[in-house]
């Protein structure tokens, strides 16, 4: 088996290896506890190496499809009955995020969960959740997407309720499973609607044959609302602080990844499956004798601009409410959870601005009237900022959650009111927290600033008020974390926290990985944007290339 074989099989292996590892874990755990931990780390490392190989290949050679069970993607060039994974730049980009989070979370949980019972099941579930997350990200099939969504949510619900001795943790797990199962059922309903019209579940085939009938629009509404609930958009966000706040920190890190996988679903569904409406630009003759595709193009597309504006409104609500609620919290993890909510708003804002910047106007050429459809110039930069912010948010919020977990391990306290003066004993943790603070509140020179700057500028061109609100939310975010810095790390030593010790090395190592990536991304944003973000943006805005990935040469 040489390297080209590994590249060829990597989309399947990225999902299959964690899945196999998940079910091997209970057997390995029979031998030794340490061996089980090493085994889990090994699985995560192998998976992320495969992701790196795959991403490298996709960024240089374009879309890669993998058909399960062999054969061509289409039977007789028309029926798409085989399950396939289709990996373009966006998928590879999301997979990179997921792999970073995976490795860090598993290394972190080595000492974080020491002396806890039920670690065998913890590692099984966490590997299962990773497999589900990668499946959601890489799949090219709608129903497969639903299945992996459910795998991810079932595994993560069980993990949220890991502290079974606390009633609130179980309550959070119950809320999350109710929310996610109802959201997923409506997504399944929408998939059924799409299947009933086009006899296909394949995303590229759907994107090719979509005709924007009334049922399609209903399906679009169902898909967007179901995935928005899974991604935690206000006002469907209430499960998020509960779930993020009650879960163990290593699980929260992966939950951030799962949430972003749902957000990726919104991106993929709007920009690829419904890409004909959301991506198309061009000029169409405006006369009484419109036929075929041109007629569809003008008359029956969903109103992209109003969808964009509703997304912008939801994003603004998400930012404002997230940050205002974060300001009031006194439980550290709950506070960071609300801040994570505000960060999600920025990503949604970027995509909303892209949709809202679409225009259609009547132009006169050669004595004939044409309808011109296009985007204002700032749409691509908005999308770039939004996609860049996905990886930044995962890193920044992830680092802060890890710091919160470290504080919990060191002091056994979750409430900020009982903390103080930790900087005197936990030097490294404090440094990591300050890096996270600067990054998450969008201060130079960390990575958060680079992506937020792009979002501010493009948003400001659409409507100055939105840009100002985005900047204001960012300032409030800084205020939120300055409060944490003040009340947890600064100040005199609190009497009952006198003999707090620095957390073990493996946790510091996990935080250090993320902190290093944050600093590198902050200092060289151009390299990141050119090599990772730009291919992702090009891939997600080009639905025709996505269709060609399956309709090979037709």
């Amino acid at each position, binding site marked *: 088996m040489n390297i080209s074989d590994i590249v060829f099989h990597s989309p399947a292996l990225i999902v299959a290896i964690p899945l196999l590892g998940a079910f091997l874990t209970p057997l390995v755990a029979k031998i030794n506890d340490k061996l089980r931990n090493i085994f889990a780390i090994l699985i995560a490392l192998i998976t992320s190496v495969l992701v790196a190989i795959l991403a490298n290949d996709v960024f240089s050679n374009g879309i890669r499809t993998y058909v399960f069970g062999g054969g061509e993607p289409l039977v007789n060039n028309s029926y798409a009955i085989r399950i396939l994974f289709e990996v373009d730049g966006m998928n590879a980009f999301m997979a990179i995020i997921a792999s970073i989070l995976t490795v860090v979370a598993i290394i972190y949980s080595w000492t974080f969960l020491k002396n806890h019972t039920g670690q065998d099941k913890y590692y099984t579930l966490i590997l299962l959740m990773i497999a589900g997350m990668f499946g959601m990200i890489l799949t090219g099939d709608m129903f497969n997407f639903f299945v992996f969504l459910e795998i991810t949510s079932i595994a993560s619900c069980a993990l949220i309720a890991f502290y079974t001795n606390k009633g*609130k943790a179980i309550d*959070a797990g119950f809320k999350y499973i*109710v929310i996610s199962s109802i959201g997923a059922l409506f997504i399944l309903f929408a998939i059924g609607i799409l299947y009933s019209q086009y006899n296909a579940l394949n995303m590229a085939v759907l994107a090719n044959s979509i005709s924007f009938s009334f049922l399609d629009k209903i399906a679009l509404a169902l898909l967007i609302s179901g995935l928005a609930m899974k991604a935690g958009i206000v006002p469907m966000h209430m499960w998020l602080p509960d779930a993020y706040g009650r879960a163990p920190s290593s699980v929260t890190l992966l939950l951030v990844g799962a949430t972003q996988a749902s957000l990726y679903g919104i991106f993929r569904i709007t920009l690829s499956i419904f890409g004909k409406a959301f991506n198309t630009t061009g000029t169409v003759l405006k006369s009484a004798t419109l036929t075929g595709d041109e007629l569809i193009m003008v008359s029956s597309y969903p109103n992209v601009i109003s969808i964009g504006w509703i997304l912008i409104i939801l994003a603004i609500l998400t930012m404002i409410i997230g940050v205002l609620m974060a300001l009031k919290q006194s439980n550290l993890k709950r506070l960071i959870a609300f801040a994570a909510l505000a960060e999600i708003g920025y990503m949604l804002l970027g995509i909303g601005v892209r949709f809202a910047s679409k225009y259609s106007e009547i132009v006169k050429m050669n004595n004939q009237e044409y309808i011109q459809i296009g985007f204002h110039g700032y749409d691509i930069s908005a999308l770039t900022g939004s996609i860049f912010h996905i990886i930044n948010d995962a890193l920044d919020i992830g680092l802060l959650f890890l710091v919160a977990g470290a504080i919990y391990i060191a002091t056994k306290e979750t409430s900020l009111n009982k903390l103080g003066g930790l900087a005197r004993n936990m030097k490294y943790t404090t440094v990591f927290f300050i890096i996270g603070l600067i990054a998450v509140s969008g201060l130079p020179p960390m990575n958060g600033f680079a992506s937020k700057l792009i979002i501010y500028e493009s948003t400001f061109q659409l409507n100055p008020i939105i840009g100002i609100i985005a900047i204001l939310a960012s300032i409030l975010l800084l205020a939120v974390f300055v409060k944490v810095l003040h009340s947890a790390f600064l100040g005199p030593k609190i009497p009952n926290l006198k003999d707090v010790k620095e957390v073990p090395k493996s946790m510091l190592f996990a935080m250090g990985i993320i902190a290093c990536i944050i600093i590198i991304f902050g200092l060289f944003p151009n390299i990141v944007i050119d090599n990772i973000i730009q291919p992702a943006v090009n891939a997600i805005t080009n639905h025709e290339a996505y269709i060609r990935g399956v309709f090979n040469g037709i």
Partner: protein
Amino acid sequence: MLFNFPYIAVVLLILIGLATVIYKRNLIKIVIGITLIESGVNLFLITLAYRKDSIAPIFHGFTASKDNVPFMSLPVPHALTLTSIVIGVAVLALMLTFIIHLYRHYNTLDARKIGREEE
């Protein structure tokens, strides 16, 4: 018109399920509401698969002469329904486990009294 009855039933089931989830405060009843929505969606998928005078999509002995072969109903929605049922079982088991745990902690199944204690 007759063929639309299943779809009406689907919408009714989903609406009843949503109403149950929204208006009931008992955790068990919330779970029942979710299973109602689930069966509505499953019924929808099964209805999609139906063709008039169709047979089950299984391996049978008919040869390739096209005149006598009856339609098969679509096999893909059946597979989808089965998968969705399997997932539904897993979700149901997990939810009931959570409810058992919650009942142990709080001695009640009222959603308004669960998870309200101060830390």
